[in-house]
């Protein structure tokens, strides 16, 4: 009986926490357990399906950076084909500029891409990458950041550059109509 009561009370107290946690899945809370800054030894960041994300997989980091914590490095995986990824970086503090450096290494070929955000600002950047992918966050002054990496899927990879630019330009477009009503018999 006592075991049952213990279990009941524990369940009642823990239940709301479980429900809350389900809203945000697969988030690395770097502000709790700081990721290392060495790009040769980055923390593995897995892109996974997220509830409410209709297309593809994503990874998320809610982190702190700057001051004693000079850098956070994350390994995003290896891709043999060119993959389109969206990097969404938000600075949440009143600190300095936050810099995200994305490195794609394929054999001897190394590509670096830099994304910078100032305090309270946000940037979304699409990159087409191949090889071993590492994301490194740096800042001088202590601040918080949110980093989201979204891989929408291979249907986006299959788009040519022009088609992809077209989709970006059409963002928010309404559903096109295939049929138009006319007076009379139509054609």
């Amino acid at each position, binding site marked *: 009986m*006592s075991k049952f*009561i*213990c*279990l009941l*009370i*524990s369940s009642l*107290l*823990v239940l*709301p*926490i479980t429900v*809350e*946690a389900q809203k*945000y899945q697969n*988030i690395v*809370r770097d*502000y*709790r357990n700081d990721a290392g800054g060495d790009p040769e030894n980055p923390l593995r960041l897995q892109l996974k399906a*997220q509830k*409410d*994300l*209709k*297309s*593809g997989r*994503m990874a*998320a980091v*809610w982190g702190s950076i700057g001051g004693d914590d000079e850098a956070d490095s994350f390994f995003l995986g290896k891709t043999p*084909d060119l993959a389109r990824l*969206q990097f*969404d970086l*938000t600075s*949440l503090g009143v600190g300095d500029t936050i810099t995200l450096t994305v490195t794609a290494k394929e054999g001897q070929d190394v590509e670096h891409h830099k994304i910078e955000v100032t305090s309270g600002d*946000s940037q979304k950047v699409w990159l087409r990458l191949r090889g071993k992918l590492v994301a490194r966050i740096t800042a001088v002054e202590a601040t*918080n950041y*949110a980093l*989201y990496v*979204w891989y*929408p899927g291979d*249907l*986006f990879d*299959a*788009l040519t550059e022009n088609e992809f630019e*077209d*989709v970006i330009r*059409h*963002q*928010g*477009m*309404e*559903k*096109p*109509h*295939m*049929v*138009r*009503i*006319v*007076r*009379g*018999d*139509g054609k």
Partner: protein
Amino acid sequence: MIRILQILIAVMLAQSISQSARADDVSDALFQPSFSNMMTGASAFAHTLINYHAFQQCASDPSCGMPDDPGSGFEVGAGSCCDNNDECFNDFSRHVNRIDRALFTLYSNDRRHNLVMRIQGARMAAMRGAGGLSAPAAAVVARQEADIAIAERNYLEKYNAKTNENVGLLNDFLLELGSVINSYCEGSDWYQRNGLPLYLHAKIKFPK
């Protein structure tokens, strides 16, 4: 006494977990708006892609009409008898919306199919390129090519089954609209004059 102690320990343990989680919530609250922004943006972008698929595929079909090209496409009329009857015309408009949605799905899926085939083609080409390296590598590539071909065949079967189902649904809507028009304007033959050509177009164009 031991039971009371057990209960007390359990409560304290649960409370400590609860408190630490509440502390995390306070920190999490700082990040949550950025998460919502990201998800909203991603959802809008994925939605745009679906609309864009249908738009592109329809625009590349001379038979399909687009709003920015009023000279082309699927112009459907109710006929002069129905035009002069408000109730009939409103009924007609409601049914046309369903036909529009059915065609939207067909065009969107058609475009998606073309992209999937483009991906498969690129994979095949990459395999063949890699196969030139050595004999064992060529054997592995040959096996993988066979796997890709099987996957492609399975995909095509599923695609055609779904497409035929969607074309059938379109025809159901067209037949229903024909009956509606006929109920207002007897002998109008709307389906024969307007519905059937659209159905035949879909039947020929979409299955692969």
